[in-house]
């Protein structure tokens, strides 16, 4: 669907936006993690996405290859559990983008990513983990695209709102997974760092989508992504690109 160059440009913009945001919020994430974890989440995510951006920029492949590179870089550069959770899951889910980036492939990517995070981390909603932000975000995105037929930007906006409510939901919970679970009741009253970084990433994917997509055209393109007419080609291209990073 998208010409490879535009797809690459949007993907790299999304990765750069995420890297910048995580660098800016490094202290905040580390403060959250020092309350209930091992005080390294901000540093780890910043280091991870800095490496991811660098490696993605020097990757020549298609969208799936670029996204897989992000996952590989995160696995190698992040020391904590976020490395395998974010990185390993992105690596696995990147295969869903082999047919290019379109609304339906990004839904498949998001679902594959969520499934791998839950499988690897063995966490359900309510355990005070990134899953609490991720499940509502992915489910909302899927529904918005597949059931409500919304333009991808609007679907991503709803996903970000859902992720934000998911983060708020983690505050009163007692952690059942991860380092915070060792604290028992002392983990109550704190926002989960992994759910928070998940929200930050979704917000930056949304910001990238808003930058690259035409919202109105995005909706009509969503229904016929693989056979764009010539007039809709540009909008379609941008549309698929920016949404494609959902889940990173």
């Amino acid at each position, binding site marked *: 669907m998208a010409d490879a160059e535009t797809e690459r440009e949007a993907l790299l913009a999304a990765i750069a936006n995420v890297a910048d945001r995580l660098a800016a919020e490094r202290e905040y994430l580390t403060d959250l993690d020092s309350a209930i974890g091992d005080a390294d989440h901000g540093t780890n995510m910043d280091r991870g996405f800095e490496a991811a951006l660098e490696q993605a920029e020097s990757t020549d492949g298609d969208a799936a290859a670029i996204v897989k590179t992000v996952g590989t870089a995160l696995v190698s550069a992040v020391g904590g*559990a976020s490395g395998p959770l974010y990185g*390993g899951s992105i690596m696995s889910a990147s295969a869903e983008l082999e047919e290019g980036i379109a609304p339906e492939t990004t839904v498949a990517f998001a679902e594959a990513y969520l499934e791998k995070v839950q499988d690897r981390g063995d966490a359900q909603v309510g355990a005070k983990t990134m899953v609490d932000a991720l499940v509502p975000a992915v489910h909302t995105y899927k529904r918005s695209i597949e059931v409500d037929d919304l333009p991808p930007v609007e679907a991503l906006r709803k996903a970000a709102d859902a992720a934000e409510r998911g983060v708020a939901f983690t505050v009163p919970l007692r952690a059942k997974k991860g380092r915070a679970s060792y604290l028992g009741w002392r983990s109550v009253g704190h926002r989960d760092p992994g759910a928070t970084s998940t929200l930050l990433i979704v917000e930056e994917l949304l910001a990238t989508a808003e930058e690259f997509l035409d919202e109105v055209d995005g909706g009509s393109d969503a229904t016929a992504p693989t056979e764009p007419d010539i007039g809709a080609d540009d909008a379609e291209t941008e549309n698929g690109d920016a949404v494609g990073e959902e889940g990173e």
Partner: protein
Amino acid sequence: MVGIVVVSHSERAAEGIVEVAAEMGGDARIEAVGSDPDGGIGTSMDAIRESIEAADDGGGVVVLVDLGSAVMNAEIAIEEAAVEADAGIADAPVLEGAVNAAVEATSESATVESVVEAAAEAREYRKL
């Protein structure tokens, strides 16, 4: 022979556990790996993968792990490692499991499955 890899958030802890396990299973092939990519407390998938490849002589590898990221990074390392034979993670306390695994690995009939089982039996050890 089935190789063994001990993964800890601390490289020194991993080395200490290997030291204890080697006393019981002196001929076993055991690798210690720990710390994050910068040498801090954590684990590194790449380092674990290299240790799995180093421990493997064709007979497969059993991995013992401590907390959180050690388990997940070991899972990915096994998927990524160029190991022809089986590799498996033992669901066991890391030190006691490593001792059991080292002893089982030196028996002639040992398989990845039997070493994983021996390590997992360490879950039953009571201290009091």
